[in-house]
């Protein structure tokens, strides 16, 4: 399942997509959990009893601000969460 967490508002579309099929069999040991400086990710058991990562609810409403520090303007050349996610399950829409 592709789970899109986030929102669209007057300033743009801010979604973090997580491909749960890649996430279930994570070969990186869910490294995204520690890679995110804002600790936005957490592991949950989904409706199909699989252990997957999702974006914490409060962060889903503030992604544009929470992720700003990791974008190129914050000095990063690649996003820490996407770099840590070697299976390539995490994507940002902006």
């Amino acid at each position, binding site marked *: *399942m*592709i*789970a*899109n*967490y*986030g*929102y*669209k*508002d*007057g300033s743009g*579309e801010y*979604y973090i997509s997580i491909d749960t099929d890649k996430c279930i069999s994570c070969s990186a040991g869910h490294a995204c959990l520690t890679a995110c400086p804002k600790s936005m990710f957490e592991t949950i058991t*989904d*409706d*199909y009893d699989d252990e997957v990562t999702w974006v914490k*609810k409060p962060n*889903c*409403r503030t992604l544009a601000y929470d992720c700003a520090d990791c974008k190129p303007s914050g000095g990063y050349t690649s996003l820490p969460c996407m770099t840590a996610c070697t299976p390539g399950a995490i994507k940002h829409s902006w």
Partner: protein
Amino acid sequence: MITAGIDMGSRSIKVVLIEELKVDGAPQLKYGVKKSHIMMPGDLDQDVAADKAYKEALEAAGLKREDVKAVFATGAGRKQVAFAAEGITEMTAGAKGANFMYPMARTVVDVGAEEGRGMKTDAEGKAIDFAGNEKCAAGAGSFAEAMSRALQMTLKEFGEASLKSDKSIPMNAQCTVFAESEVVSLIHSSTPKNDIAKAVLDAVASRVCAMVRRVGIEGEVVLIGGMVHNAGFVQSLKTAMGVDAVSLPDMPEYISALGCALIAAERQH
């Protein structure tokens, strides 16, 4: 075997009781709806309200608590249903319910009071892709309701008024508060109410459509959630998605509760 699904919405609580059927020669008739019940909670305590709604549904169906094998809950307040064995996300429940009603459904659009979301499902009714708007009410029923109040109309009148307009007035505000200011400006510029109603519903539809396009429009499209009762919104959404036909269940607000009850039944086997 009887199971129950409770959808704890932000505006209303829906309860669906289903019974496993054994109809000879018709294996597709596996489950039947025994009773559906809706309650507008007057109680701020969600667990008390859920218990009351469930009790009312049982009474209406002539059942006792012990007759029900499992109760699953979904919706924004699903964690408040203390007597539910499991909580199911709105995506999983909605996709399951829509697939039960329309087995060919592959795109499900759920617009309730608090939130709107688009989902893609597989042939078994499993959600395989979803997108919602977790930030504001601009793509949901409460937005349309607030705007209808500004026009001093009921939601039904609001939807019907929208169908009488053929004008497209863009509403730029994304936020309910600013949109209300836009509606007030339109009223002051003597814009007919019908045109304002259409502008509002077009705006809601375009926001919902943005979420649906994120997951992709594929196969049969089913609309679920309370907003489906608003004929003007359905028309606006069809236009925004560029589809001629959408499937509309008779009781769209119950579909997630139904899906929840179906999942509860399947997990008893």
